[in-house]
């Protein structure tokens, strides 16, 4: 699997996690990174890769940042 494919896969997994817990739990970037490291293993997924996946997630408009007493990654308004 190429790096780009892995970034896409991790971004999708992050998106599913944010979607599943939407309205119940807020995730920070580090929460998503920790969860992905646990899911894929630290030998496969590291912080730099997660950073790129989050960037993809935000730039694609699937997720957005919110501020609720801290900055979180969440679904855009109206989702």
């Amino acid at each position, binding site marked *: 699997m190429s790096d780009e494919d892995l970034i896409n896969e991790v971004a999708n997994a992050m998106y599913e996690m944010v979607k599943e817990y939407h309205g119940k739990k807020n995730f920070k970037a580090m929460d998503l990174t920790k969860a992905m490291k646990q899911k894929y293993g630290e030998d496969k997924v590291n912080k730099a890769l997660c950073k790129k996946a989050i960037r993809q997630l935000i730039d694609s408009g699937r997720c957005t940042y919110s*501020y609720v007493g801290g900055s979180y990654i969440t679904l855009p308004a109206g989702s």
Partner: protein
Amino acid sequence: MTTNKRETPLIDQLEKGPWPSFVKELKKSADNPMTNDLLGVLERSYNDRIGHWKHGGLVGVMGYGGGVIGRYCDLPEEFPNVAHFHTMRINHPAGWFYTSDVLRKICDIWEKHGSGITNMHGSTGDIIFLGCVTDELEPTFSDLTEAGFDLGGSGSDMRTPSCCCGMARCEWACYDTMGFTYDITQHWQDELHRPAFPYKYKFKASGCPNDCVASIARADMSIIGTWRDDIQQDDAAVAEYVTSGAVDIVEDVVGRCPTQCMSWDGEKLTINNRDCVRCMHCINVMPKALAPGKDRGATILLGAKAPIIGGALLSSVLIPFYEMEPPYEDLKELVEEIWDFWGEHGKNRERVGEFIQRIGLGNFLEQIGLEPTPEMVVHPRTNPYIFFELDEDEDEEEED
């Protein structure tokens, strides 16, 4: 458009007195409906003794997690023109230098898209645009980027680095504060715009220990200029201060030295530079006679915060002397070690200084790979029960 100006008897009191008044300034643009409602909601808050703003939420510009602070009025029917009144933080140029042409451009952009009210500059250092409706955020951002500006930080990210005017205007600057600030702003764009930390992280760069940007009290990482060699001393100029009567050298200089590291024998000022703590007092009193040494750099300190309710926490020494030569690679590596460790183990809304207090400085230093030095100690410990832990190598040696 004619606006019915609101009656504001309570906040009118803030116009009295010799000091500058933000109410007076706001009233100058009260023909703008947003400003008029802003004055109205403030008057209402003074009457009700409660704020009428809610902040936070989902507002921002595409791709960025910082730079826009959502603000909504909780009385939108009464004050419809400030129902959305978002704040935009615009990354200022290092040292706050502008051309008048650029200032006009910024103001034109803001009058076109927002309330026209600015705060030059906010306590973060940024140019603050006060009062934008949600639909105008992207167009404002677009015009700003075209004019060469970008948003600053907000939320749990690296905040817009700020600095004193440094070598541009100050002879005491021990390093290029503006160059350093520009460098780290460019280097950590991702950290500035995409919040990934437990809480905010501020850099403030002061060129000398006078610390004109109060970095020691306000920045998570304070970079304060200092020197390693002796204070530069011009004995003839010292004598001139004394003979002209401009300075009472015994009372105003020697007597106020916090470490008593200097003496005056009636003819010559003698400084024991080994005991000097770089407080800058003598240099400030006799600027023509004394100056910081020539071997200059900065002290790197960590962990300040200036809370509204709790007590202030000043930053503590992390690196006693750093040469501050671009591209500052060692410092950048250390900062990223700190971010990794704090990011992994910090609690939500826990500043790095609070994190260090919680886990202990010893553990923190071990994790970021920095050796303890005497300069990190604030005062001698009062607990007499000190336990030394031998490291593994020493253990093995003893067993051998």
